[in-house]
């Protein structure tokens, strides 16, 4: 198994450990991030934003924030409303926090779900090959030829209780395809390796070889893809929300905040409504991408800096 322990005990402290023990996966990734100053700053930023958003949103009452307040419409930033209010008199700062939390949660859940489905399908498809591979890949092809945006729009119009769950599912339904194809191609290579045959000679079943032998060997590529996908999914959610196919107004997200800028007046005169969310999207995506690049380098010994 890939060792992901962050045990940094020095050889002196544990004399029975060999001094030249190979670095664990996580410590290699961490070293790579520290070596790359931009990635390090990005990592700290993302961590700080995530932590801040999740902690403060626990203290905030979402219902109160999204309640329309007719006495505080379109107010510029002040000491009462740190980032002003929107056309419904709702606090932008509060919405920003809740919105970032929602966007991040969606992105993380979608990334994990697509990751799990994609890896499972890709692994089974690539490992067994032949008829199973053919069958699964035709399913993938079928989903791929569907126009993503149109289906999402149709889905949103058709489903009555459109909320976070429905949105997550429809995103997941389309986003596992790429991962499945990628993992399949890697698994096709990996199953030809002799250690797979060797493991069979000691009597391992296909299932065991797939998950205990082959999967860890694909872990680096899975981690890299998932990190980069996380950034892409934040962007995708925002994009859909901006077009009006994201969350309902009662559920603020980064995308819904930006979408207020569709109103020319808001765009020109009330920057505080849409600008903070836009900057946050930009910063988050850039930072996660930077971290992702560092992780990618860590996964390939030839590209490492540290």
């Amino acid at each position, binding site marked *: *198994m*890939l*060792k992901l322990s962050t045990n940094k005990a020095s050889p002196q402290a544990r004399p029975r*450990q*060999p001094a*030249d*023990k*190979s670095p664990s996966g996580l410590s290699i990734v961490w070293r790579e991030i520290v070596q790359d100053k931009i990635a390090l700053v990005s990592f700290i930023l993302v961590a700080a934003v995530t932590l801040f958003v999740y902690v403060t949103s626990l203290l905030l009452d979402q219902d109160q924030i999204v309640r329309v307040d007719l006495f505080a419409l379109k107010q510029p930033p002040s000491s009462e409303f740190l980032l002003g209010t929107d056309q419904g008199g709702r606090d932008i700062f509060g919405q920003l926090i809740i919105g970032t939390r929602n966007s991040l949660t969606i992105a993380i859940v979608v990334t994990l779900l697509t990751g799990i489905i994609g890896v499972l399908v890709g692994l089974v498809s690539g490992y067994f090959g*032949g008829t199973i591979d053919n069958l699964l890949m035709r399913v993938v092809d079928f989903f791929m030829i569907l126009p993503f945006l149109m289906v999402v729009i149709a889905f949103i119009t058709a489903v009555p209780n459109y909320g976070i769950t429905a949105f997550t599912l429809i995103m997941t339904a389309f986003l596992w395809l790429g991962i499945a194809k990628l993992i399949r191609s890697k698994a096709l290579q990996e199953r030809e*390796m*002799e*250690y797979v*045959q*060797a*493991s*069979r*000679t*000691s*009597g*391992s*079943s296909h299932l065991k070889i797939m998950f*205990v*032998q082959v999967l*860890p*060997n694909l*872990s680096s590529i899975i981690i890299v893809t998932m990190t980069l996908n996380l950034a892409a999914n934040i962007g995708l959610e925002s994009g859909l929300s901006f077009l009006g196919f994201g969350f309902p107004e009662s559920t603020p997200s980064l995308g819904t905040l930006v979408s207020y800028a569709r109103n020319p007046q808001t765009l020109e005169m009330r920057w505080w409504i849409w600008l903070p969310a836009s900057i946050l999207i930009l910063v988050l995506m850039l930072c996660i991408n930077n971290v992702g690049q560092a992780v990618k380098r860590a996964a390939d010994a030839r590209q490492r800096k540290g």
Partner: protein
Amino acid sequence: MHDDLLSIEHLTASFRIGDRYYAAVDDVSLTVRKNEILAIVGESGSGKSALAFSIMGLHTRAKIEGDVRLDGQSLTRLPPSKMNKLRGRDMGMIFQDSLSALNPLMIVGSQIEEALVLHRPGLSKKERKEKTIELLTQVGIAGPELAYEKFPHELSGGMRQRIVIAIAIANEPRLLIADEPTTALDVTIQLQILDLIRKLKSDIGAGVILITHDLGVVAEMADRVAVMYAGQIVEIASLSTLLSNPQHPYTRSLLRSIPASREPKSKLYVIQGIVPSLQHLPRQGCRFRSRIPWIDESAHEEQPEMHEIAPGHFVRCTCYKHFRFPGEEEIRHGAS
């Protein structure tokens, strides 16, 4: 015979290329006894490894005909789950390239333990580790506790090959298949590994199939030798017979092509041509015909069969009676 550990009868393994099946292993029959090393020799592409994989039942896309019996139990008709139980417990395999035969992301200790987990579920975690350390000691690794924690890339080629052997013998299999176990190693390590295999063989009383193209290794190790050419066995005899009285033209050519360090700069004998690929195998007649074109066509049989020319000494095709090397005048005859 009752002391036959493994008996292979008319085993044929065919692969599909395009829409036809081609036999990479063609009608192979042989037996391995307990506590015996049977060497299988042949050039690259002669079907040695394909034979080993067929015995282990590792070919998923091949058509297998004939019968393989381990202690009387037929393996070819066994369902996959039963076969999984047998692999690793009753038969083990040693691979040629130890670096690729080990999972690069697993410490070698847990790779050895895997074989124990699968076939000895009764062992506790601690007992398993103890047994693994014991195995590491058994295959001659100094500092087994240290080696236990290592990843394959941290070990030398010889050490890795020992690990591969430790995995293969973890459950004391009755049959051990060594597929070119020393090809990737340098000469000094070769000898140690061969000694180890021989020692383990007598320790656990296993039958060993040693696949190699190195006749030096054969001379060192084998009790009996089977020579394979283009998927068929062309000659099978005890080691001393085969070395002193080889009959089939292919065996004789092989023996003649060994570089001798005692005669530096003498010209090496080269067998003309290459092993014909699966698609281009002659459908009829002797398969070695194309590589000894100076021998008259009539010397070959139309359907070459195995002839027992002495007890336990089998040769395929009649061409051996008429074979001579270029420049060799007199024609040697049969068993002397």
